[in-house]
C-alpha cells in the first residue's frame, strides 16, 4: 500500500522512494557501514594477530616469514609466561568472587528506598565512571611505600605494630593482593548496577505472596531472589571476567608487572614483549592465550540468548 502512494509521487524521486521502502535493501544499506567498519577494524587486525603469532615479525624489520609454532614454543619456554598465566587466573578468579559477593550485598542494600540514595549511588559509581588509569593512580598514592595512608591508619589504631610498615606494591604477595583489591574496587559498581536492574525487575507480588506464606528474609533471598536473578548475574559475571582477564591497566599503572615480574599478567606481558621489547610476533603469541577464555564467554552469551529466545 505504501508503495502505491510512493509511486504516485514525483517520478524523479521514484527510485529513491522505492529503495526507502524496500525493507530488505534498506536494512542491508543501514547495516553495511557498521559491519564494514567492524570487519575492517576488529576482524582484520584479529586475523593479523593470528598471522603474526606464526611469523617472525618485529618492530624494526619490514619482512616477515612463516615460522610455524616457533613463537608459542619460545614464549611457553620462559618462566615469566607461566607466572603471567597463573597470575591472570588468580587475579580473575579471586577478584570476581569478591565482586559477586560484594555486588549482591550492595545491590540488595540499594534496592530499598532511603534518604540520600542518589548521593550514595553517585559515590559508589565513581570508580566505574572515572578513567581506570586515573583511579589506579589514586591507589598508587594510597599504597605509597613511605606515605601510605593505610599504614598510617593501621598504626594509629594499633592494628600494625610500631615497626610494621608493609610495602604494598613491593612484596610479591602483597602486590598481588593490592592489585586484586583495586580490580574489585573497579568492577563492583558495574556489577552492582546490573544486579540492581535485575532486582527491580522482579515483580513485588512474588515477595508479597511469599510473605503471606511466612517466608523470612533468608528464605526469600535464597529461594526467590537468587534463582530469578541468575541470568542477569551471569551477565554481570561474564563482563567482570572479560574486563579482568584481558585488561592490563591496573597492573600497568600500579606495578608494571614488578617486583621482578611477579605480578605480570598475560595482557601486560604481551605489551612489554610486543611493544616495549619490539617482538611483535612474541607479543601476539602471548596475547592469543587470552582467546580461549573469550570464546568460552561468547559461547555462554550465545546460550543465554538462545534460551531467552525459546522462553
Amino acid at each position, binding site marked *: 500500500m505504501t508503495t502505491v502512494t510512493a509511486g504516485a509521487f514525483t517520478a524523479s524521486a521514484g527510485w529513491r522512494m522505492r529503495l526507502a521502502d524496500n*525493507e530488505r535493501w534498506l536494512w542491508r544499506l543501514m547495516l553495511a557501514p557498521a559491519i564494514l567498519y567492524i570487519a575492517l577494524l576488529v576482524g582484520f587486525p584479529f586475523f593479523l594477530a593470528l598471522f603474526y603469532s606464526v611469523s617472525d615479525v618485529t618492530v624494526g624489520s619490514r619482512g616477515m616469514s612463516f615460522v610455524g609454532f616457533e613463537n608459542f614454543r619460545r614464549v611457553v619456554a620462559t618462566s615469566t609466561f607461566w607466572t603471567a598465566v597463573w597470575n591472570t587466573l588468580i587475579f580473575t578468579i579471586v577478584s570476581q568472587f569478591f565482586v559477586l559477593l560484594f555486588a549482591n550485598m550492595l545491590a540488595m542494600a540499594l534496592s530499598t528506598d532511603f534518604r540520600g540514595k542518589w548521593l550514595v549511588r*553517585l559515590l559508589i*559509581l565513581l570508580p566505574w565512571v572515572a*578513567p581506570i588509569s586515573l583511579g589506579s593512580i589514586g591507589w598508587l598514592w594510597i599504597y605509597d611505600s613511605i606515605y601510605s595512608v593505610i599504614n598510617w591508619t593501621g598504626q594509629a589504631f594499633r592494628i600494625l605494630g610500631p615497626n610494621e610498615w608493609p610495602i604494598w606494591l613491593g612484596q610479591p604477595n602483597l602486590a598481588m593482593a593490592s592489585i586484586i583489591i583495586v580490580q574489585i574496587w573497579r568492577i563492583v559498581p558495574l556489577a552492582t548496577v546490573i544486579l540492581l536492574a535485575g532486582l527491580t525487575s522482579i515483580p513485588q507480588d512474588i515477595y508479597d505472596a511469599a510473605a503471606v506464606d511466612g517466608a523470612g528474609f533468608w528464605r526469600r533471598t535464597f529461594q526467590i531472589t537468587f534463582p530469578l536473578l541468575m541470568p542477569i548475574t551471569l551477565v554481570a559475571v561474564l563482563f567482570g571476567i572479560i574486563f579482568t582477564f584481558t585488561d592490563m591497566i591496573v597492573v*600497568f599503572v600500579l606495578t608494571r608487572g614488578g617486583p621482578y615480574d611477579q605480578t605480570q599478567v598475560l595482557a601486560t606481558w604481551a605489551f612489554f614483549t610486543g611493544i616495549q621489547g619490539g617482538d611483535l610476533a612474541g607479543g601476539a603469541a602471548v596475547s*592469543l592465550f587470552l582467546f580461549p577464555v573469550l570464546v568460552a564467554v561468547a559461547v555462554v*552469551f550465545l546460550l543465554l540468548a538462545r534460551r531467552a529466545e525459546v522462553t
Partner: protein
Amino acid sequence: MARRRVLRRIAMAGGHAGVLVFFVTFLAFPFYWMLMTTFRTTIDLHDVNKNPFLFNEPPTLEHLKVLFEDTQYLQWLINTGAVGIAVVLITLLLAVPAGYALARMTGPWAQTLGIAIFLTYLVPPTILFIPFARIIAVLGLQDSLWSLVLVYPSFTVPFCTWLLMGFFKAIPRDLEEAAMIDGLSRFGAFIKVVMPISIAGMLTAVIFAFTLVTQEFVYGVTFITSASSYTVSVGVPTFLVRGDVYFWGSMMGACLIASVPIAIIYNFFVARFVAGFTMGAIK
C-alpha cells in the same frame, strides 16, 4: 514477641546502614583522598608523623598551578575532548542506522547478527593492539590523534549499536506504521518519527561512547609517544609518573578534575543505560 520484632527491625536497619557505609567508604575513598591531597602542601604530604587526614598546614592551590602551568595537562584535556567528539560523531553515523535496522529486521538473521556485533565488543584491545601498532605505522599515523579517532570506533560502534538496538526496540512499531500510512517511506518514518523521539536514547549512547573514549588506555599508550598528543588517561600515568619525584598533589588534582564531571553526568543516565545494556542479553 513484639519486642523481638522491634529488635530484629533495628538489626536489619543497622545491617543496611553498615553495608552502605562500608561500600561507600571503599568505593569513594580514593576520590576523597585525591581531593585531600590536591590541596595539602608538599611538606604536609611528606610528614609521616602528622595526621594525613587533617590540614596540618593551610590548604594550597600550588599543586593545581603546577599542573596547569608546568605540564601539558590542559592540552591532554583538549585532546581527549577532540578525540571524543570525533569518535562520537563517527559512532552515531554508523550505529544509529545499524541499531534501527537490527531492531526492526525480522527473520532468523536479525538476532544472530545483533549478538554477533555485540560479541565483537568483547574482543579486547589487548589482542588487537599489536597488529594495530603495525597498521598505524604503515598508515603513517603514529603519534597522531587521528590514529585514535580511527581505532576507537572499533569498540564504540558495537557497543552503541547494541545499546541503540535496545532503545529502538522499546519504541512501538505502530508509530512508524501510522506515519507510513500517512505517506512517509520506511526510511522517512525513521528519520522524521523515530529519531526525534529517540533523542534521550541517543544522548545515552553519546555519553557512553564518550566515556569509553576517556577510559581507553591500551591503544593510547601504544600509538602515542609524544607528550603533547596524550589523552588524559594516558598522559597522567605515563608522563607524570615517569620521574623519580612524584608530584602527588598535582597528580591527584589531575585525576580528580578528569573524573568527577563525567561521573555526575553519567549518574543521570545510568538507569537508562543499564536497561539498554542488559535488555538484549536476557530479555
